[in-house]
């Protein structure tokens, strides 16, 4: 008996050793190679190249580059366009985050209260903008916002109101972009909330009901607290993605105008590089934006880590 156990332990040990040797084999690097080469070439090298380019003046076609030192950065920091786009990006990101965290939550709570067949129907419809192309959707919204023939203003005219030129007025342009972005992206968060709601055990509600909790109290004291991890995930992903999500509506609906009123940092880089052909200047903007983004993301993760612990 003793022998058998000792033998068993010995086999187990040699198995572990074999397994460890197998797992640690030199070929492991080969599996990483494609990802290393590709991220190196298309993400990390561009980051370096962008920083290098930011110290040059180059127009995309000229055979000569001129080294200009910190000139691009100085010009950028002194430019109104840069600050306007930075402020607008912050404003739009805040609005987008509030709306695409709040609206889908409300709708998911509502959907939870209807029968399963209705729930499926609402879910399919409300999610549908998420699967279509943002660029094509924006072309449709461009038509909806048309100052003369667009359905928004023709409807307003029906009730005797004169709608503004939504996309070329500095008050409304950025809100049009925000509206379209919310329309296009809220469905994803909505579905995440529904999935989150399904993970809340029924017994929690039953226990609270036995204790005499009202429907409203159930939402405040059971649903929302237990949904907190989903909400945090939705919040972080929405905020991080919002500068990216703003690009297409800006490019198609307003081109950042009028007078930078609806510009944002991602579009500014595109504009400087591919419309004004100031590659070095655009790269300086890209580099600064990357730094701002990095700090904000790091800060967010730091805050999130402190609030909630993921992991198993």
């Amino acid at each position: 008996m003793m022998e058998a156990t000792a033998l068993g332990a010995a086999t187990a040990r040699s198995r572990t050793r074999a397994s460890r040797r197998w797992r640690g084999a030199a070929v492991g690097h080969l599996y990483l190679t494609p990802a290393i080469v590709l991220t190196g070439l298309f993400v990390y090298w561009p980051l370096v190249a962008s920083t290098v380019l930011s110290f040059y003046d180059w127009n995309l076609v000229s055979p000569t580059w001129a080294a200009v030192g910190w000139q691009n950065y100085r010009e950028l920091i002194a430019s109104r366009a840069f600050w306007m786009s930075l402020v607008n990006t912050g404003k739009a990101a805040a609005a987008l985050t509030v709306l695409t965290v709040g609206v889908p939550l409300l709708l998911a709570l509502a959907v939870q209260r209807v029968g399963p067949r209705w729930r499926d129907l609402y879910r399919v419809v409300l999610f549908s903008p998420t699967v279509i192309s943002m660029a094509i959707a924006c072309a449709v919204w461009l038509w909806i916002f048309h100052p003369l023939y667009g359905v928004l203003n023709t409807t307003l005219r029906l009730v005797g109101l004169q709608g503004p030129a939504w996309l070329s007025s500095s008050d409304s342009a950025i809100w049009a972009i925000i509206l379209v972005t919310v329309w296009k992206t809220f469905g994803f968060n909505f579905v995440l909330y529904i999935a989150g709601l399904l993970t809340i055990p029924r017994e929690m509600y039953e226990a609270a009901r036995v204790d005499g909790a009202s429907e409203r109290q159930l939402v405040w004291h059971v649903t929302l607290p237990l949904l907190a991890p989903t909400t945090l995930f939705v919040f972080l992903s929405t905020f991080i993605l919002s500068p990216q999500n703003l690009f297409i509506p800006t490019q198609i609906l307003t081109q950042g105008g009028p007078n930078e009123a609806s510009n944002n940092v991602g579009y500014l880089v595109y504009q400087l590089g591919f419309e004004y052909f100031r590659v070095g200047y655009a790269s300086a903007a890209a580099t600064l934006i990357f730094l701002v983004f990095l700090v904000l993301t790091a800060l967010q993760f730091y805050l999130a880590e402190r609030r909630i612990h993921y992991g198993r």
Partner: protein
Amino acid sequence: MGASARGVHVLLVAACLLVVFPMFWMFSTALKPPPEIFAGTFRLWPSAATLQNFTTALTQVPMLRLFWNSLVVAAVVTAAQILTSALAAYACAILRVPGQRVWFALFVATMMVPSQVTMIPNYLLIARFELLNTYTALIVPQVVTGYGIFMLRQTFKNLPTSLVEAGILDGASSWQVLWRIVVPTTRTALAALSVLFFINTWNQYLWPLLVANDKYMRTLPVGMQEFVSLEGGTNWGPLMAAATMAIVPALLAYVVAQRYVLESFVTAGLKE
């Protein structure tokens, strides 16, 4: 049905109408003859529906070719992203490679880099190798994704250890363990991630806009913008017809596979 249940339905129906209206309006405009489009008065449905916008759209833009381009790019990018992600995730989750934590961190960190930051050097690289307006340009720079590596590493880590151990005892090589054990057992997660990648690539705009300006090499979302003119001379009828032709197949595919698509977004989008 109680009063509050009715209120809930009213809220949800209103939300659905707001969501669907732009798509309805696109279709309705596509069917209107020019005088109705430019009437400047509200009309929900054309009084004399016509298909002329569709014929104009088809003669101005090679729609079938655009479809094909989008399909090729989305399919190849999806397959390649899954492959590179699975390989890297396997090395990070199951094998023991020196420095794997550092590599993994570097892969995941790419998620924090907005595409606008890398687009200029990437464009210059593609232009330098004279690859503008090729499938290579549309596909190759996107065949790796930090998100995919991150998601699949989580998935692979959750596999029971005994599964891989059994393979090792049978004398399987790491390559065989990957393809005969790891991939088959995680196929649901891989499929969900593929749906997500396919939809993302299909809808993508910025990168194809930069590298494919040839009429025949554009993808659908880019080719569509041909009708949009900044000078105000936009051809609204054909634009809406083209948008309808581009969106309707995607929506149909979504409605048919809705349960699956929704589940994919949830499983691939929300990590445990």
